[in-house]
């Protein structure tokens, strides 16, 4: 079966639950209770959003959120915001380290968080100026732009990256 790509005005989304939507395509096709998920959650959260049904089967792919009309885009963004929790670190307050357990006391856009990273190699991944963190419980965090962090935070992070 050929993959259905959704662009621009070709689909209408209706919020079903916090992470799911109903979709009606221009040709009348309806997908009920599908969950938008990013195909590239770490590297690109705005393009290639797959729509999975309750059985995890892909029904369509939104090529780019930016091509959708504003109100449609907001519905999908709302679902993604509920599904994905990747707190953005705005400040590093303190760091401690003991035998591989790195503890970062941080401020994030979701409130203060203590991040405990057990594996230095696995826990920090830098892509350009973006830093992705993964803690011992597989929770994810990010610093979207390292250059925009304050000097103290940068200095504290420099010990690990």
């Amino acid at each position: 079966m050929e993959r259905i790509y959704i662009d621009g005005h070709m689909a209408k989304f209706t919020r079903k639950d916090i992470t799911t939507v109903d979709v009606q395509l221009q040709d009348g096709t309806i997908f009920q209770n599908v969950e938008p998920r990013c195909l590239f959650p770490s590297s690109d959260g705005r393009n290639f959003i797959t729509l999975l049904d309750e059985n995890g089967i892909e029904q369509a792919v939104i090529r780019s959120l930016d091509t959708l009309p504003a109100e449609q885009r907001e519905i999908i963004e709302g679902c993604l915001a509920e599904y994905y929790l990747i707190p953005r670190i705005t400040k590093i307050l303190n760091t401690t380290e003991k035998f591989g357990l790195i503890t970062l006391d941080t401020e994030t856009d979701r409130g203060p968080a203590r991040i405990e990273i057990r594996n230095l190699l696995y826990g920090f991944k830098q892509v350009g100026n973006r830093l992705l963190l993964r803690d011992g419980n597989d929770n994810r965090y990010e610093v979207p732009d390292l250059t925009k962090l304050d000097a103290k935070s940068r200095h504290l992070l420099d010990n690990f990256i």
Partner: protein
Amino acid sequence: MIKTDRTDETDPAQLREEASLTVNEPFRGRQFAANKKLTVEERTLLESTLAEEESLLFAVVGDLNIRNHYARSVLVVTEKGLYGLDASFENGVRTQSFDGLKRAFVKRCYGNALLIFTDDADNRTNFLRFSYKEAPVFDAAATFINRVASGNDREEELRTIESSFEKQFRVCPKCGRTLIRPGAPCMNCQSKDKVIGKLGRYILPYKGILAICLLLAVVTTAVSLVPPYMTKVLVDSVLPNGDKNGLLQCVIVLLVAHLIHYGVGAVRSHFMRVTGDRIMTDIRNDVYEKAQKLQMRFYDRTSTGSVINRISGDSQTINAFMMRVTQEVVVQLFLLMGIIVIMFAMNWQMTLLALVPVPFVVMGSRIFGKKVRPYYRRSWRYWSAVTSIMTDTIPGIRVIKAFARENRSVDKFKKANNFWLQTDIKVSRIVTLFPNVVGFAVTCGSLLIWSVGGNWVIEKPEFISAGLLVSFISYASMFYGPVNFFANLNDSYQNFLNAAERLMDIIDAEPENDFSGGKHPEKLHGKIEFRNVNFSFDRAKKTLTNVNFVIEPGDIVGIVGTTGAGKSTIINLLMRYYDQYDGEILVDDINIRDIDMTFYRSELGYVQQEPMMFHETIYQNIAYGCENATVEDVIHAADVANAHSFIARLPDGYDTVLGERGVGLSGGERQRLSIARAVLKNPSILLFDEATASVDSETEHQIQEAIEQMIQGRTTLMIAHRLSTLRKANKIIVVDKGKILEMGTPEELMEKKGKYYKLIQIQTMSAEIQKTKEEERL
């Protein structure tokens, strides 16, 4: 009460007390289990919300509010219903009664999870939200709620949830690391001294030879203090007086001193080198042995390159530092003290002058240590990346060539290597700058002595003689040697700490449980039971959910399902590659976690889709794990596996040395060797994971024949995509999305017309289409 502050010397009794579930004061006179302590506000809210006489069964504290922000959320379970506390709710609380509750489940999103309830009309309530950290306890709570809602005994279910909570106490309250057993001391939270002590045990077996080396070092050091003194004697007494006899005596003394210095030094160097090599060999052996016994989970997350780097490079760094500490530190300290005593005895004023640069050197060392450590760490990370590329690409050279990606591979390597180079250049800048700055500081100290001491020699020759000044300068330059050494010791120490940290990551990582211990029945009969087994590789996605099945001895069971359904995970858990699952897996009614690991695995024969061959002879590959097998046994095993005929045709027969990972044989041939290996083991339980998936029809037929010969009388689990390969199976388990969808005899499942029926239909259809096409072609 759980205490968060803990010393390393915590009393075991106290640890046991802490590992209890009673973290809270009783609520309305009843003790209740909870993963964390409830706040006063939460207890007050519960007092006002709960009906009179309603008491708590247990509580689970989460860490996110429903709006996906960090905040406390609490699930409270009472006899009558469920309460969710979350400051973002209206009045801070929401309720749900057991009546009308159809199902409770945890939906794992990305970095967070939701506890969801559905009612009879399938309406969903997103009750509470929490991060992955708390998800396992909420999972247990959901299981409890479902069972109680469906009428199970509440007290019995409460015990189950308490055991899930207990697992939470298997983590160190201080650092969160999983402990080997509840209440065990946490390796992470031990002091650095203990780490040094732990690594220091490698030195203990060689303490005798090291003590001799130390003694020899003291001799050479003491002897090295003689020449400067002889210089003073020569300049002040012998040369001005023209004392030829004295001159000869001085030269002889110097000759003897140098002879002892270099002769003893050479002997010591040899002993040191041999001892150092032995210590390093011991460390490498231990780390390699530990690496063999680590849980698969460790390898899921750690690259092979990084492990190899630790075994080779880090053990060398640690050895070098330990030798420095046990030998050089003592020698340099002895030298330092000896020189200071002599210098003070010669002239205390000039000695004080010589000490002027010391504070600068010490301060500089501290600053340098802090600055250099992140660079060393970065350098190591990049070097690991380089070795990872090598361990990835060199074995995969065939694929690289097949896709003509040689240049891309080279570019990738060069890029990683260049990153390492850039970082190492930065390390080099700091590492080379610091000793030179220190060198300059100590030279300035010498200049100070020359200028002040020289003036004294000129102006007050009665106070200080020229010979004394020259001798003093010699001692002063010797004095800065140990100072320099101790200043730079911090560099080695930082390097050592980084290496030790990485090595301890392996040494202290949890090994597979009970590698040598546990029950040892005479023989396993092969009854297998999975009881409420739940498992996830990481906390992002549940791989197995509530898996239950019983397999009787001698059963031949086919496990079918789509890719990613969880089939191989069932085998992995049965193999005890992963022990961190909820529920129980029993073999012959014994929990497999309680069976001696070595014995248990010796009773399992495992044939995987991609058979792993070692760079050894075919004979050694078949006899792998059965060192006592006779030649006849090996030939028989090869025969059963339909491998003997092709081996016999090879020029070197059983002596054929295989390339790495079995290069030189076809996929089917490697698979037959792998089956022969399993046959030779004579296991009670056989596990086939897509054994014929990657071979052609003819080879599949040969392998199938071999398998059918082998499985007679043994409990067999076979994962297969091609359902035709399961024709001997008397039981089929259909797995889908980590759950058991159907189970029964093939006939029962065909009658049921469910998933298995559909799979058979699809495969029959595709086989017919293929047959028609082939006929058309003919």
